[in-house]
C-alpha cells in the first residue's frame, strides 16, 4: 500500500473519529438529546463517573486526540509520522481500558463509544504503523 493511500485512509479515519467524538461530546452536554431508547447502555455509560476525567469529559479528550491525529497526518513529515504512531498506540492502550470499563465495571455498552474504541482507534493504529514502514529513509 502506498504512502499516499495510507495517508488518505488516515485522514478518513481521523475525520470519522472527530465526528464520533464530537457527537459524544454533544450528547454529554445535552442530556435531553440522549433519551433511554432501550437499545443500549449509552445513557448509563455517559451518566457514569468514568465519563469525566479530572473534570474533562472523556469525549472531549477524544476530540483532542483525533484532531491531533488529523493535524499530524496533514503535516506530512517523518516526525509527524512517528508522533501519529505513538499517539495511536497510546490511544489504543487507553481505549482498551475504556472497553474493559464498559464490559466489566459499568456493565453497559455505548455503541458509539465502541465504534470509536474497537474500530476507529485500532484502524488508526494499524494505518499509522503501516505508514511507518513505508517511510522513506532520510
Amino acid at each position, binding site marked *: 500500500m502506498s504512502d499516499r493511500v495510507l495517508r488518505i485512509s488516515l485522514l478518513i479515519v481521523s475525520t470519522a473519529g472527530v465526528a464520533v467524538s464530537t457527537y459524544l461530546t454533544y450528547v454529554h452536554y*445535552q442530556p435531553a438529546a440522549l433519551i*433511554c431508547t*432501550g437499545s443500549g447502555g449509552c*445513557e448509563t455509560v455517559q451518566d457514569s463517573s468514568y465519563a469525566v476525567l479530572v473534570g474533562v469529559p472523556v469525549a472531549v479528550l477524544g476530540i483532542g486526540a483525533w484532531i491531533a491525529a488529523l493535524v499530524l497526518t496533514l503535516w506530512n513529515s517523518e516526525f509527524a509520522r*512517528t508522533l501519529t504512531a505513538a499517539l495511536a498506540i*497510546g490511544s489504543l492502550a*487507553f481505549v482498551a481500558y475504556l472497553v474493559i470499563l464498559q464490559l466489566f465495571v459499568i456493565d453497559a455498552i455505548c455503541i458509539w463509544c465502541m465504534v470509536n474504541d474497537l474500530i476507529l482507534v485500532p484502524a488508526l493504529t494499524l494505518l499509522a504503523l503501516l505508514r511507518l514502514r513505508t517511510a522513506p529513509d532520510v
Partner: protein
Amino acid sequence: MPKPSAASKRGRTLVIAIAVAIAIAAALVAASILTRENGGDAATTETTSTGTTTDAANPTLAVVAGIRQTGTVLGNPEATVRLLQFEDLQCPICKKYTDNAFPAIVDEYVRPGLVKVDFRGLAFLGPDSEKALRIVVASGYQNKLWEVAELFYANQGEENSGWVTDSLIDEILAEVPGLDAAKVKTDAKSAAVTKEIAAIQAEATALKVPGTPWFFVGIGLNPPYEIRPTTLEPSAFRFALDDALKG
C-alpha cells in the same frame, strides 16, 4: 565512532515517542481510577448501595408531599394545563430529570395549582421496569403513585440488574405514610394494572414516543402536543409551561 544511521535514529525516536504515549495513557487510566475512588459516584452510591431508602432520598419524597393526587395525576385536577411525562423507572435520564427539573416544576407550577403532571409509565427497558411500574401504578389506586415513583428513582440501580427486589419493594412501600402495602402488592398483579399499562403503551405508540423521558403538554381538552426541552434543567421547561399557561 560511526554515525548512527537515519533508520536507527528514527527507531530511537519512535521508541521514545511510544514510551511517552503509553506513559500518558497510563496516567489517564490512573487519573480515571483515582478520580472515581475519590467520590466520583458518591451520590449514586448513597442511594443505591444499600438497596433501601436513605436519608438522602427523603427530601426527594418531600417534593410531592401535601399535593393532591388522583390516580396518575399530581396536582390540581381543575388545572387547565397538563404535563405528560412518559418515563421508565429504570431509565437513568428519567432519574436525572426527576432530580434536576421535576422539583422546581412542582414548586413553581404544580403546588400553586397552575399545572397538573400526569405520569405515563412505560416498561420497555426490561423486567425490572415492569416490576417497578406495576407497583407504582397500583399505588396510584391509593393516590400515592408519586411518592412511590420518587422512591424508585431514589433507589434506582443498574439497568436490568435485578435491582427491583421484593425487599426493596417492601422498604419503599413502608416509607410512604398511609399506604396499604399489602393491597398495592395484590393490585400490582391484577388485570386492571395490566390493562392500564397496556393503555399507556398504546398511547405512547400513538404519540410516537421514541424513548424516555418524553414530554407532552395538554391544554384543556385539546390533544397534547410534544415539547422538546434542550436540557433537563428547570429553565428548559419554564418556557413551554409559561407558553401553555398563556393559552
